């Protein structure tokens, strides 16, 4: 029994990590007032760019060095998601395009891009089969050295690859950034009331671009974690599923607080796979249980709207574009 629970916790954490990356990234973005619904697509791109980088390196090398495997795929992943969020920032901030439309288009595009390269990367190099980056996957999955000496505890909490810890560190650092630094204060002001922030002399364009790109890069790491650690370097089309949307739901559930996103992600990760741990479920019951995270999110939305506590509301100008001379 204890073992099953430990297994479940471990699985919930594993499921939660990509969600945590996505949620933290989206929170950083939304704090600037940009509602980036392109995050699910960006996470796909973060995954596939990492795969492409990893493949190019592994493919041309008989003896891939683990650290290079990581560095190259990581850099490619970050570049891919940065580029996607740059498109979003440019369209919504510089060209004042509608944020929802832009985001949704980007998600469709990102998923398509992922599936396209996922399906045809090997063909470009005249190979057949499906993508599987053994060395890179192994490098990412390497657990903390002392994990296996600590028994059940070590196995449950310390047996993850480095990206899992990075997710938690990024969430904590983001939280400190938002609450304890001048730049964090300025960023939050922009999301709440851009006209005020502008009148206070804050460079809104700069902040919106930077936070959107940084947020996208963080979210993209979620896709990278999924393909490199969770599936150990293998790509399956649409394998990432609806996790991107789940990450956006977590943003609401965590009330736009990166620290709360940590445990929220693990809860959502748990809900995502709990059906596997309940014996004797029919397949329709499984689907209903998979719906739980969204249901919980709707309940949270109802709850915060009813309570009207100012601190629990989304950034007040979320989704709106700002133009100084307009009033």
């Amino acid at each position, binding site marked *: 029994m204890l073992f099953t629970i430990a297994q479940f916790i471990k699985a919930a954490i594993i499921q939660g990590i990509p969600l945590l990356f996505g949620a933290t990234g989206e929170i950083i973005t939304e704090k600037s007032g940009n509602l980036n619904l392109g995050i699910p697509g960006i996470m796909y791109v973060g995954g596939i760019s990492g795969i492409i980088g990893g493949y190019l390196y592994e493919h041309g090398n008989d003896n891939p060095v683990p650290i290079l495997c990581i560095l190259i795929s990581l850099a490619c992943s970050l570049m891919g998601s940065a580029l996607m969020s740059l498109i979003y920032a440019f369209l919504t901030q510089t060209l004042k395009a509608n944020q929802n439309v832009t985001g949704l288009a980007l998600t469709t595009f990102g998923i398509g891009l992922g599936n396209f390269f996922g399906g045809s990367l090997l063909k470009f190099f005249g190979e057949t089969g499906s993508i599987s980056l053994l060395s890179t996957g192994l490098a990412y999955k390497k657990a903390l050295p002392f994990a296996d000496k600590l028994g059940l505890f070590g196995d449950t909490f310390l047996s993850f690859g480095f990206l899992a810890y990075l997710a938690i560190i990024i969430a904590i650092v983001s939280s400190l950034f938002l609450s*304890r*630094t*001048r730049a964090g*204060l*300025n960023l*939050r*002001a922009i999301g*709440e*009331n851009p*006209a*005020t*922030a*502008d*009148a*206070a*002399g*804050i*460079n809104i364009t700069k902040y919106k671009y930077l936070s959107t790109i940084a947020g996208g890069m963080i979210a993209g790491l979620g896709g990278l974690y999924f393909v490199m650690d969770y599936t150990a370097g293998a790509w399956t089309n649409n394998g990432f599923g609806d996790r991107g949307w789940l990450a956006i739901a977590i943003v609401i559930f965590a009330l736009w607080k990166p620290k709360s996103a940590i445990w929220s992600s693990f809860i959502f990760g748990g809900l995502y796979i709990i059906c596997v741990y309940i014996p004797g479920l029919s397949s329709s019951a499984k689907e209903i249980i998979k719906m739980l995270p969204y249901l919980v999110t709707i309940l949270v939305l109802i709850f915060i709207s009813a309570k009207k506590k*100012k*601190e629990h*509301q989304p950034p*007040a100008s979320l989704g709106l574009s700002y133009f*100084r*001379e307009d*009033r």
Partner: protein
Amino acid sequence: MSTPAIELKNITKTFGSITANKNICLTVNSGEILSLLGENGSGKTTLMNMLSGIYYPDAGQIFIDGKEAVIKSPKDAFDYKIGMIHQHFKLVDIFTAAENIVLGLKEDGKYNIKDVEKKVSEISARYGFDINPSKKIYEMSVSEKQTVEIIKVLYKGADILILDEPTAVLTPQETQKLFAVLRKMKEDGKAIVIITHKLHEVLDISDRVSVLRKGEYIGTLNTAETNEAELTEMMVGKKVSLDINRTEPENCEDRLTVQGLTCLNSDGVKVLDDISFTARSGEILGIAGIAGSGQKELLEAIAGLQKYDSGSIVYNDPKTGSAVNLKSKTPYQIKELGVRLSFVPEDRLGMGLVGNMDITDNMMLRSYRKGRGVFLKRSAPRELAKNIVKDLEVVTPGISTPVRRLSGGNVQKVLVGREISLSPTVLMTAYAVRGLDINSSYLIYNLLNSQKQKGVAVIFVGEDLDVLLELCDRILVLSSGTVSGIVDAKAATKEELGRLMTKNSKGGADNEQ
């Protein structure tokens, strides 16, 4: 003569087809308070926004301390030590006072909100402000918010201070406090520009007055050598008679009878305590009182927007002759009976108007239930919009301009005009002339008068005692939620009203809001 702190030369600014400012020249000296005067929509806010970096002029030059300045953004404005307090506050609601004050600053050293709070307290002590730096903005009253705005500017060390209608929503006591601060800043050698529509304030606080009319610069006078009549004439461009033509009430019938109205707020404090009075048709009943003495609650109780704990409100329907108890009616039913409320809130766009919609659409918001059929009929509201624009002299390129583009005062004319146009039997207005220029204020007074002559029971909540005495037939004075007297406006004096207003209250303006 020393070089002026600000010198504007031939400034022009257009928005599409509107020329908001045309070849404007203006100087402000250090250690002086300049008052900028002009009708609603004459371009005052626009001109000042070019100093604070919100707008950039199409043509013309700005000199700060004798050197030409290019102010492209609010940040540039800070670098020239210009601080502006905007007509609509620029504060982040969910931040504390201190957080709002340091927003956007690039101070050296580690960011520590405690240090900021200490520095804010120091500034408060020096100028005599009373503010809690760690209080959230959304918990603050208007005058507290304004204090935060002023400290914000002082904290940044501004030498030039611009205040856009700072007194529009302040009580007379709060205004006096603000003026004391401004005089102190003037002694410190700062250059101050203040925009206000209240001429007695202009005469009270400023050293010189500059007047704008329809986007053009008209002239500058020394305050000591001018008077209200001359300033009004400069502003409007022609001699205007500032008289209210009060007629004797005719055919008075009891229209609304309020008996023993008592109302508790969420903390269990009585905001209305045993209020009784009658509003009669063909008569203007004024309501005087220090802000927050229960005016809002009283009007809202009548309109059905505020629950009350005991007492009754009875409406005598002129159509059927029957008496209707309003307690059992919904706000919509009360409105349909002809009881109309136009409450001008502190945030004009917040209540009753949709900023993104044009004037016609905003008219329809109140009458859309009238038409039959699936499609909305736009012809009637369009006519109405045209009439309001004409009657109230709304400055707008057309009736299809989104309301948020209008100047502050013109937004308000639309709001008040709409309520008056709905041919009510009881018309309640609160602070109807907040932010309106003197000419428009008199337009509104005369409109209310003509409503009265039509047999409407008008209830007028006002701030200016002189106006109350001149416009109303009877004046009910509220003091801490009770009726401290109902006087005949023709016989009463300002002193008498003032005494009644503070009769029951313990600390004057301090226990409001």
